[in-house]
């Protein structure tokens, strides 16, 4: 079951990663990247890493993607025009790619760690989110407040920089 979910999410992730490159409209590319991130979050969930999965969706698919879309808007990127494929460039690129993949596979296959499965993480029935929560509020109360102050400073900076005529 876990293996099936792993394959579903992996294939979907690679599919959307390919679409990021293939799509001619930059906004469509960005949205494909969102789907890629969400599938990656699904992979994290199957590995019991719930916190990092949620962060992946909240921060990457949410916040970072907003920045990407903002850059697309700011630079006024338009749909790419279709280019003619040059046969010599195509085969040259393919040759380089094959050499690269060959070198990578050869290097990775010889590592003994690749063929081992890491032992399952000992969670003791507590989810990683609860672990992080307890650690955060038992040990790191003060740093949390400092993070709040940093966010406050960032908010003031954003508001100040982006509006010239303030009240």
């Amino acid at each position, binding site marked *: *079951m876990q293996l099936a979910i792993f394959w579903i999410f992996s294939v979907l992730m690679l599919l959307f990663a390919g679409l990021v490159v293939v799509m001619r409209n930059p906004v469509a590319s960005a949205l494909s990247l969102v789907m890629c991130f969400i599938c990656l979050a699904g992979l994290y969930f199957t590995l019991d890493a719930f916190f990092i999965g949620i962060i992946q969706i909240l921060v990457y698919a949410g916040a970072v993607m907003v920045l990407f879309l903002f850059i697309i*808007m700011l630079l006024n990127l338009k749909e790419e025009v279709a280019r003619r494929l040059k046969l010599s460039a195509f085969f040259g690129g393919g040759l380089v790619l094959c050499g690269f993949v060959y070198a990578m596979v050869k290097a990775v296959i010889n590592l003994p760690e690749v063929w081992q499965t890491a032992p399952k993480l000992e969670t003791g029935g507590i989810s990683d989110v609860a672990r992080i929560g307890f650690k*955060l*509020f038992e040990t790191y109360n003060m740093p*949390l*407040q400092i993070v*709040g*102050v940093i966010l406050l400073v960032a908010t003031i900076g954003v508001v100040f920089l982006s509006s010239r005529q303030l009240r």
Partner: protein
Amino acid sequence: MGKWWGVMLEEYLPALVHVVVGIGFAVVALLTNFLLGRAGARSKAKDTPYECGMLPAIEEQPRFSVKFYLVAMLFILFDIEVVFMYPWAVVFREYLEREGVLIFWSMMGFIGILLVAFLYALRKGAMEWSR
């Protein structure tokens, strides 16, 4: 392992139903449009946004206002706030029983600091769109 996954799947069933309904709605809406829209004959003129009047003279993508930047950055900042509230909400009840009310005041302090940021943005008119 098998039992554990059974429990997991039962918990995720509502999420799965949610996703399936979402995809189903999109597919039905697109399919209905496609099927009903075939009634009339298509032509190049009919596929343009405006069938009559002047040809649109400006570029197809207008420049975006800098106000979007403000909204995007404010979204990111308060998104980070939510990231910290997520483990807080998960452990809140258990922590309260074990360790006391510190967790409540810790988060109140954090939210209080960010409330100052929110009020600052509000006072400076960052949320007013038509300015």
